[in-house]
C-alpha cells in the first residue's frame, strides 16, 4: 500500500524548505511600501489563490476580480499582519471573505442539493453515454460530469475539499483558514467525498 498519500496539484510555498526567511524579508519590505517586494509575494501566491477562488467562484471573470481584490486588500492591510508565518492563511482568509461577499452580491450560491441536482441531470443527459471512461474523460464528458457534481456541493464542503484535495493543505491549516475545528474539517472532507461518490454512482448509468 505504501505510505499515506498527500494529493497536491501544486506545492504550497510554505511547504518548501528555504523560503520562509525570504518571505519574512519581502513582507517587511512590502510593509514599508516597497511594491516590488509585494510583487514578488504576489508571484509566489497568485496561482494558488487564483485557483482556490476559481474553483469556488461563479465564473472566471469573478475569480479574476476576487483574486485581484484579495491581493489589493492584503497590500493595504499588511501593517495589520503581526505573524508573518501565517501570511498564507491570512491571504486565504481574505480571498474567502471576498468570495462570500461576491456571492452575497450575485446571490448565485447553489447550496441546495436538490436544485443543483436538476442542473447536473441536464448536463449529464447531454453527455455522450457511450465509450469507455478513459475516452470520456479525455473528451471532457466525464470531466463535465465531475465538475457538475462538484459544483452542486454545498459551499461548506466545497471549500474544505478544494483546500484539502486540490490545494493540498493540512487539516490544521484548513482549520485556521476556515475557523472550524479539526474534527469539523475532517468530517466535512469525508462528507464531501461521500456525496461525490454517491452521485458518481447514481449518474454513472446515464
Amino acid at each position, binding site marked *: 500500500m505504501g505510505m499515506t498519500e498527500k494529493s497536491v496539484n501544486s506545492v504550497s510555498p510554505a511547504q518548501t524548505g528555504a523560503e520562509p526567511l525570504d518571505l519574512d524579508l519581502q513582507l517587511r519590505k512590502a510593509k514599508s511600501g516597497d511594491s516590488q517586494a*509585494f*510583487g514578488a509575494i504576489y508571484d509566489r501566491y*497568485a*496561482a494558488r489563490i*487564483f485557483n482556490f477562488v476559481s474553483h469556488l467562484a461563479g465564473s472566471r471573470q469573478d475569480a479574476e476580480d476576487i483574486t*485581484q481584490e484579495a491581493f489589493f486588500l492584503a497590500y493595504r492591510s499588511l501593517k495589520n499582519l503581526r505573524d508573518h508565518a501565517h501570511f498564507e492563511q491570512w491571504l486565504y482568509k481574505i480571498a474567502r471573505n471576498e468570495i462570500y461577499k461576491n456571492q452575497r452580491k450575485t446571490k448565485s450560491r447553489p447550496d441546495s442539493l436538490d436544485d443543483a441536482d436538476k442542473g447536473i441531470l441536464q448536463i449529464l443527459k447531454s453527455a455522450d453515454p457511450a465509450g469507455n471512461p478513459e475516452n470520456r*474523460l479525455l473528451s471532457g464528458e*466525464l470531466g463535465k460530469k465531475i465538475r457538475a457534481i462538484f459544483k452542486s456541493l454545498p459551499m461548506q464542503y466545497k471549500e474544505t475539499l478544494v483546500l484539502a484535495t486540490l490545494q493540498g493543505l493540512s487539516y490544521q491549516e484548513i482549520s485556521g483558514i476556515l475557523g472550524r475545528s479539526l474534527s469539523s474539517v475532517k468530517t466535512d472532507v*469525508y462528507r464531501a467525498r461521500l456525496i461525490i461518490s454517491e452521485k458518481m454512482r447514481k449518474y454513472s448509468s446515464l
Partner: protein
Amino acid sequence: MGRRNCIEEIALSAYLDGELNEDAAKGVEAHLVTCRDCSASYESMKSDRNLLLEALPDSPAPAHMKVQLFSRIDAGTEARQVSGIWAWAGIGQLLHGRSKPWAFACASFAFFALILSGFHIEHRIEDGRVLAQIDRFKADWVARDKAANPFDIDINGAPLRPTTAKNPFKAYLNER
C-alpha cells in the same frame, strides 16, 4: 461501515490526505492488506479523488491581473475614488487608512477656518443692516419730532434748545 474490526471510512479519508499519525497510518496499511472490503473502499475513494484532480486542474494566474493590480496599487486608489477638493484635503487617504496625520490636521484647520470666516462675514453684514435700520428710524423720529413735538425733546429726552423755565410744582413738592 458496520463491519466489525474494520476501519471507519472517515479514517480512510483522513489516511488518504496523510492526516493520520504514524501509528494510526501503519494500522490502516496493515488492515488494508488483509481486508478486501476496506481496500475496495479506499481504492474507490482514491479513484474519485484522482478524477476530481483531473477534472479540476490548476491553471496559471492571468498575466493581466497583475498589471491591473499594480496599477491600482501604484495609483493608490480604489474603485470608490475620492476626488476634487476632498482628495486634496486628504479625506480619501483617511478613508483608505493611509492618512498622513499632519496633512489631515492642516486640511481640518483650513476647513474650520473657512467655516468660521464665513460666519464672521455674515455677522458683519447683518450688523451693518441693523445699524442702517436704526439710523433710518432715528432720522424718521427726529423729522417727526421737529414737526410735532411741543416740548422740543429729542429721541433721548434731551431738550432741543435750553430752557430756563422753573418747575412751578417744585415749591409745592418741597412743602409736602
